[in-house]
């Protein structure tokens, strides 16, 4: 008879998760770079002897889905005979079961009474790891060697002692070694805390209890997820979408998925996606696997314990040599940031045919990766920073999309202006939500942001990797599309905003590397708004009024998109009820019926390529 009922099991779950939370706090409080301390771009886990996740923190989902694969590779390549108490192992190689190169996994075996219990591990985006661009995010890289230093599974510490040669080699190849030093120690410190806490837990409950409980927790998560998948109608659901370009050429890249639901299992098959491309938007297999876990788990009960058991009912097929499973030596730094979001949305759009009430309209779909570097005028030291901004998420059947949210695969935070300006030579002149950027709908899309920086140093090197310059986030069930993103520069003395492609002669306006800006230049970032869900003419006029008062929706959009006529008198906004009724009737009569599933999608017999051309055409028509 098992010692565990559901309460005992979930109590153990919470204790294990608590250890992971403490690991995360250690990392946040002790890291040197803002991407850890402010961005929280990392995850912390406890793994069993087979590198299955027993517990995790809900920080960066893309890493949580990846780390079990990366850790399994590590154990298999190193061999358990070569892993001893006090060892600390590091690994970031995309071609050994890793994500993009900045994602570094550090793991430590936990031996209790001389016997291996499992591992504690974390994965974090190390902000600078060498390569052709400061910040190691080369949007025009054509092979992985331009993206930074590759580390196969090697030891940072051996039996508790520094492996000094390895540290020296790493520090020599990073532009900001002091930050790396601090961040690696933050990661190692968090592992040491976890090891201590696990030992305490085992001392209190006994090893056998924790091991059996961990097994049962994974079984429990698998059962719960299977039950949820069974609720999705059996069938095959298909979707296609595009990445706008790869930073090297202007060609659009097709991504394709077929989701097969059969009983309590789901098979996600990316066959049909484009061959891998020259630029860095390719994904490693592990990144595509994370995509699938994130998409499926985002549709199911959030209280299912997140562990490797929850992955069991999910099967993934990502053909090698395609944009979803890059082969050596293809570059892949942006696969983790921008392709990953699109692939999540792709799976959701396929499943919108099966479970429409659980799906969001199209979300922003870009991490808006923005990197700066150079020699700091105050310190004379090299510096580098990787930052991202929030976007609008799609509206859902139940609520409006979220405003200014970092994409769901990252779940990170932006850097506060005060922290950013204290460290770097960019002054923030404007940071606001973008009016009318959320796609109109019964539930409106979330809003993107607008940010203007002024360069305050003599010279700063900029790299960027954005998407959604051409294709807007789609609306769903009558909702309308959100808005595009943009990145422009006004050189000192110039009188208008221009793209970086125009000013610096780059092939892509959204993806470029090492553009040197100078004092007085202004840089304008605009992130995408989310698509709307449902017919905007069904939106409660009072909600439209609130949106107008808050500045989320303009008076013009209220009338044009929602049919709500609002008048402003003495600084007060009021709905003209009669005019609104008439306007909504007029708009309903003027539009085609029935409302399509998406605001863009092939009609019966129409080629998907026709739609692709229309999407680009729409962009050029709308300017």
């Amino acid at each position, binding site marked *: 008879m098992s010692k565990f009922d559901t309460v005992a099991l979930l109590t153990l779950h919470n204790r294990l998760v608590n250890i992971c939370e403490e690991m995360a706090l250690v990392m946040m409080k002790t890291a040197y770079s803002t991407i850890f301390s402010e961005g929280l771009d990392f995850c912390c886990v406890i793994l069993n002897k087979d590198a299955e996740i027993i517990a995790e923190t809900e920080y960066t989902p893309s890493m949580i889905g990846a780390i079990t*694969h990366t850790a399994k590779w590590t154990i*298999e*390549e190193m061999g358990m005979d070569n892993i001893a108490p006090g060892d600390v192992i590091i690994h970031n190689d995309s*071609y*050994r079961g890793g994500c993009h190169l900045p994602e570094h996994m550090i793991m430590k075996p936990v031996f209790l009474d001389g016997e291996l219990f499992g591992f504690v591990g974390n994965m974090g985006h190390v902000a600078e790891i060498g390569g052709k661009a400061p910040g190691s995010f080369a949007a025009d890289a054509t092979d992985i060697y331009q993206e930074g230093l590759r580390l196969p599974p090697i030891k940072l510490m051996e039996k508790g002692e520094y492996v000094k040669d390895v540290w020296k080699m790493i520090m020599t190849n990073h532009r900001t070694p002091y930050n790396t030093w601090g961040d690696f120690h933050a990661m190692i410190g968090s592992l040491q805390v976890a090891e201590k806490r696990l030992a305490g837990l085992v001392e209190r409950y006994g090893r056998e209890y924790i091991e059996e409980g961990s097994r049962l927790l994974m079984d429990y998560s698998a059962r719960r997820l299977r039950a949820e998948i069974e609720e999705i109608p059996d069938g095959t659901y298909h979707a296609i979408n595009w990445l706008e370009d790869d930073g090297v050429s202007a060609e659009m890249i097709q991504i394709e998925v077929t989701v097969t639901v059969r009983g309590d299992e789901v098979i996600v098959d990316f066959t049909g996606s484009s061959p891998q491309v020259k630029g860095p938007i390719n994904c490693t297999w592990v990144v595509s696997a994370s995509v699938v876990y994130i998409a499926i788990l985002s549709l199911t009960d959030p209280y299912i314990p997140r562990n490797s058991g929850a992955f069991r009912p999910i*099967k993934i*097929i990502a*053909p090698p040599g395609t944009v979803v499973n890059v082969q050596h030596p293809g570059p892949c730094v942006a696969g983790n940031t921008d392709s990953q979001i699109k692939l999540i949305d792709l799976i959701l759009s396929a499943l919108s045919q099966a479970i429409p009430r659980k799906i969001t309209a199209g979300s922003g779909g870009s991490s808006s990766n923005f990197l700066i570097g150079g020699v700091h005028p105050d310190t004379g030291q090299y510096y580098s920073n990787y930052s991202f901004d929030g976007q609008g998420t799609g509206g859902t059947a139940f609520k409006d999309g979220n405003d200014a949210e970092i994409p769901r695969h990252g779940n990170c935070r932006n850097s506060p202006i005060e922290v950013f300006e204290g460290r770097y030579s960019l002054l923030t002149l404007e940071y606001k939500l973008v009016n009318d950027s959320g796609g109109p709908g019964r539930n409106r899309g979330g809003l993107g942001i607008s940010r203007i920086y002024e360069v305050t140093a003599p010279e700063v090197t900029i790299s960027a990797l954005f998407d959604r310059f051409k294709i807007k986030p789609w609306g769903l069930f009558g909702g309308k599309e959100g808005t595009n993103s943009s990145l422009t520069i006004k050189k000192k003395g110039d009188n208008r905003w221009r793209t970086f492609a125009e000013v610096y002669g780059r092939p892509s306006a959204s993806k470029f590397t090492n553009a040197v800006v100078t004092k007085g230049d202004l840089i304008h970032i605009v992130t995408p708004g989310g698509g709307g869900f449902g017919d905007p003419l069904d939106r409660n006029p009072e909600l439209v009024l609130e949106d107008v008062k808050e500045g989320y929706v303009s008076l013009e959009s209220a009338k044009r998109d929602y049919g709500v006529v609002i008048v402003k008198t003495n600084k007060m906004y009021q709905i003209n009820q009669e005019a609104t009724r008439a306007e909504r009737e007029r708009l309903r009569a003027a539009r085609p019926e029935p409302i399509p599933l998406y605001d863009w999608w092939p009609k019966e017999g129409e080629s998907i390529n026709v739609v692709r051309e229309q999407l680009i055409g729409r962009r050029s028509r709308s300017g």
Partner: protein
Amino acid sequence: MGNWRDIKLPWYETKILNCSLCGRMIPRKVWIVRIDGEEREFCNPDCEKLYHEYWLPTHSKKQKKTGNAKDN
């Protein structure tokens, strides 16, 4: 009926083996099965099972025409 085989690679080798079904890179142990006279490499027997249950019925016609990514 398949069997496990160890992959032994020199340190300088950059070629990596992918699973014939899921596409995952296989580190050191590969599940080898003969199908239609050809050796196929899988991560594990679960992938072999899904190859028979899902891949062949779904993709075999397409595969003959264009070759799937594994065969490229």
